[in-house]
């Protein structure tokens, strides 16, 4: 089976966000594999181990993205591809990303593509379904379980807390939801092995793409921080009185009950 994983690097969830010159300051930030993409890497490895095949992890980014790709290789992926757009693209959006991936997949045999259901930074959740549509393959988003039996695939999909049981076939793209699995930590031998695994670097040229082919269809005109919240009021006194006061405040001052 040819299994692919779409991976993005994101800020660590414990990072605070600050803005310098109108942009998110990423100078000192700690980057991780987007947590939902980590489920995707883990599931791809498990499905390969159960069904055979190779796992290729792809990211679009810059040379720093190699770190997250090596982590995925250390977890057990077989091969990594970095599509380095640093010198070619100023701005991109989900359309850009999907068009680049479409070009990457052109001419490749694909059985299964795993992606995160959302990236915790931009959080649009568009790339997975867009790529599936461009490749003309079905997709299922927010999956919490996947079982492969020949070409038949049975999936459990999280739908706002309910579970849909879905039957479909490969080729297929799925996006991963929390609860799908517990991603492993890379082992020391895994980390050693990862250093020798193939990591291919491509640029837009290699995919026969011009900047104009992937030009974003949306633009960001400003990034700003939410207004700082003033510290609230901690109530005092006997618990019964505090509760009475709280309900009074919610009803009369905040007017939310």
């Amino acid at each position, binding site marked *: 089976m040819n299994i692919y994983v779409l991976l993005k690097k994101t800020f660590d969830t*414990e990072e605070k966000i600050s*803005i310098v010159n109108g942009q998110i300051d990423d100078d000192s930030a700690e980057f991780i594999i987007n947590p939902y993409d980590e489920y995707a890497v883990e599931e791809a490895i498990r499905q390969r181990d159960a069904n055979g095949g190779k796992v290729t992890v792809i990211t679009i980014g810059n040379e720093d993205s190699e770190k997250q790709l090596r982590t995925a290789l250390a977890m057990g992926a077989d091969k990594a591809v970095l599509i380095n757009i640093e010198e070619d693209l100023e701005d991109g959006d989900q359309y850009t990303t999907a068009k680049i991936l479409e070009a990457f997949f052109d001419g490749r045999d694909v059985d299964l593509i795993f992606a995160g259901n959302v990236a915790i930074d931009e959080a649009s959740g568009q790339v997975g379904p867009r790529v599936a549509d461009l490749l003309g393959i079905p997709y299922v988003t927010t999956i919490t379980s996947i079982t492969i039996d020949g070409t038949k695939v049975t999936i459990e999909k999280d739908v706002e*807390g309910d579970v849909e049981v879905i039957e479909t076939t490969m080729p297929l793209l799925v996006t991963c939801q929390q609860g799908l699995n517990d991603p492993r930590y890379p082992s020391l031998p895994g980390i050693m092995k990862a250093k020798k695994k193939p990591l291919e670097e491509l640029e837009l040229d290699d995919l026969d793409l011009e900047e104009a082919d992937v030009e974003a269809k949306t633009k960001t005109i400003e990034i700003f921080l939410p207004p700082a919240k003033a510290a609230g009021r901690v109530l005092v006194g006997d618990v019964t009185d505090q509760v009475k006061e709280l309900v009074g405040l919610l009803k009369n001052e905040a007017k939310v*009950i």
Partner: protein
Amino acid sequence: MSEKLFVVGEVKDGALRNVSFEAIAAAKIMNADAEIVGIVCGDDDLESQALELIYYGADRVVTVKHDNLKTYTPEGHGQAILAVIHDESPNGIVMGHTSIGKDLSPKLASKLDTGLISDVTKIDANGDQPVFIRPIYSGKAFEKKMITGAFPFITIRPNNIPSLERDPSRTGDIRQHDIQVTDIRTIVKDVIRKATKGVDLSEAKVVVAGGRGVKSADGFKPLYELADALGGAVGASRGACDADYCDYSLQIGQTGKVVTPDLYIAVGISGAIQHLAGMSNSKVIVAINKDPEANIFNIADYGIVGDLFEVIPLLIEEINKVKV
């Protein structure tokens, strides 16, 4: 000719979701003069849902009825809505950023070769072109976005753009669009109901969320009672989910759901950055925690330092008193 904006109505358990009405209001903000056309899909008679869209501001509604639209699939609903789009040639689309909206909108945008701005919480229409404001990094920051082409396509986050007043005296044309819905490759075999009945977490006006301080799955019971008393939904921190006190579908935070209810009650939650990202834009935040140093008190509007198992029952009692 004036513009035409499409609003995709979402039916859940036979009724339209609130966010569909909010989507009509959003379309009106984008262009007050536009004709607002609602679409609803299903396998049943959709007359009453179509009327509701009109009562909430739609000028007319197109319904698509087919057996293969009983449960949502991206292929089925995608075909149906694209058929109506090709027939009507709208100038833009608004839908809810819900499970279905998130799943379907990128496919439609890809088919239409357009940009898509997801999860919009506010629209500024003072300039030549509408500007869409959306949270990034789970609300740790916001961005203002525009569509570069001429076709605005957005999904809106539930609970942020108020719907218009329901006006049952409004009238409008309702027509059924007949199409064949075929070639569905992802087949929904079964739906297992796990979500607590009643209020959906992402649309709830009140959220009662528990953290590690709740100590066990049993400990969540009083939280459910409190949520019931307030007509709200229960959520949880990652700590509580990791400890198996509740299902991951309840998780609120940078991983998990992002919610913006009118009232958020954080119970036994310390207030890690990852959690705050998912709820700090709630309108009013109440924190109940034993630890007076807990970070959650820094963003709470009102705080009670105390044992939740003592505070919550008293709170339920008091709320029931003022409700009468």
